[in-house]
């Protein structure tokens, strides 16, 4: 009786996981289809004819999609680097040390989770203008890093808590100073987490629209900015082509990080568990 019930729950769970997979993959597939569609008359379930028009128009002569894409990736990578470094240092302070104001700082670091970035972006715009940061890539990277910080900090705090201080202590006792402990032990152990924090920050930066719009002041163009007007109206093929390029750029870098990550974790995880 109870075995049957358990079996039922297992099947329901499997169905739910499959359904979610369908909900995720179906729109992806539709967008990919649209991006290479020449015509898709109502109410056919599949396009009638195909063409590379979308991609050609994006990267054709007179269009700067290629350089915008490269710029977006560079910007997002810069943001990932900055955010990861800052988050790693901060998470180290928050998870290793007990100091006055620790809870307040922890909360402050997570605050961009909760106060909308629209409020922040509109409020800071003038200050960025006057500081000469508006309309510069540096300003945009800084603003993106602020929004990505809580994600990266959470990942790093969890990782530091999991790794603990054991091996760092051991390195110190083996005669390694603070710097060499950091290089030989801490960074190698935290690398997987740093890669996921970086990948998260990359995605955050690559996806930003509103902040880039306000801080970039029209001078910093990212793919999100360029594709925005096409999204809800206009030429579906062009919009989908942008969507595919956008998705591709996200997935590519994500899998790049993921491959680097696998290489490391495969050999280490079980040691910690055991």
């Amino acid at each position, binding site marked *: 009786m109870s075995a049957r*019930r*358990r079996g039922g729950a*297992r099947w329901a769970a499997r169905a*739910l*996981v499959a359904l*979610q997979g369908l909900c*995720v*993959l179906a*729109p992806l597939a*539709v967008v990919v289809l649209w991006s290479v569609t020449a015509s*898709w008359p109502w*109410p*056919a*379930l599949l396009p009638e004819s195909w063409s590379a028009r979308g991609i050609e128009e994006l990267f054709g002569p007179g269009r700067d999609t290629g350089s915008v894409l490269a710029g977006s990736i560079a910007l997002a990578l810069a943001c990932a680097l900055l955010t990861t470094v*800052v*988050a790693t*240092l*901060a998470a*180290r*302070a*928050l998870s*290793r*040390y007990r*100091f006055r104001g*620790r*809870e307040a*700082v922890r*909360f*402050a*670091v997570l*605050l961009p*989770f*909760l*106060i*909308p*970035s*629209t*409020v*922040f972006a*509109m*409020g*800071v715009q003038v*200050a960025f203008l006057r500081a000469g940061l508006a309309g510069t890539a540096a300003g945009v990277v800084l603003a993106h890093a*602020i929004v990505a*910080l809580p994600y990266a*900090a959470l990942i790093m705090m969890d990782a530091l808590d999991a790794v603990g201080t054991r091996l760092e202590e051991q390195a110190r006792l083996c005669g390694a100073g603070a710097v060499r402990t950091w290089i030989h032990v801490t960074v190698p152990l935290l690398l997987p987490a740093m890669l996921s924090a970086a990948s998260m920050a990359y*995605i955050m930066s690559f*996806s930003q*629209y*509103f902040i880039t719009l306000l801080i970039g002041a029209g001078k910093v163009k990212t793919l999100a900015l360029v594709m*925005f007007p096409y*999204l*809800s*109206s206009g030429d*579906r093929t062009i919009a989908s082509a*942008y*969507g595919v390029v956008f998705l591709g750029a*996200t*997935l590519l870098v*994500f899998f790049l990080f993921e491959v680097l990550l696998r290489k490391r974790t495969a050999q280490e995880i079980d040691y910690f568990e055991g």
Partner: protein
Amino acid sequence: MAHDALALRRARRALAPYLLLAPALVLVAVFLFGVVNGLLQGFGIMPFLGMTTFTLDYWAQVLTRPDLVESVGFSLYLALVSSLMALLGGIGLAAALVAVRQTRLAALIDVQIPLMCAHILVVLFMVSLFAGSGLVPRILSGLGLVQGPADFPSIVGAPSGWGIIAVYVWKEVPFVAFCTVTLMDHVSDRFGEAAATAGASPVRAFLSVTLPLCRGALAKAFLVVFAFAFGAYEVPFLLGPTLPKALPVLAYLEFQNPDILNRCVAMALNGVMAVVTSAAAIGYFAVLKREGRAR
């Protein structure tokens, strides 16, 4: 002498966390500066224009404008419905992933890919699925439920904002699952068997043991989703109706107005937004505190 050496080491240890935090504090300071600066502008304080007198005029103007209540109501509605649905869906998804002993592939497709997709990309997804020429109306028409593209309720500009909610749900269900699945896996691993031997069915065990133990993580995820859905601009701008406008859309409209004084109005609107999201932040802080005490 030896005592001094000890004191020196102690001082260095006391200083270390602040040094490590310095870069993050700079970022946080810029963030807070932006928020506070914006809020001050809502009170008419714009030193760069020589305006330094505190006034409640803009707030009064904002609070009495006829479209405010509707805007706030619309944004609250969007945020609440989206975050509640995301919470329920996220719990279900996380539980399902735990129950099937989530494989790497399932986690990748069900959680990680949606996490990676930008909100604006999800707008495109939903439009491709649900707009008049989208896949879902085509399927419905194949089933004879819909006659033509115009019969299907429009996803863009619908007063119910269902398109916006669809985007948030698609995006945030996996987010809630992401925030809780590790903990849930751990909890059900540790206590699931104990609950089962105590005679609880899987569903009862989940409701009476796993869920209460994941309460903190769920509350935090819910609040983050709520605050985001309440304050984000892109999705309601792209998919929202002309009236009522979501609060961030209304604020940015005022912000863009060539008359610089409208900025103060925009900032007062942002102030309203900040008040609501601050409530979420306080809730979040309370959860953090409780977790800190429990530990």
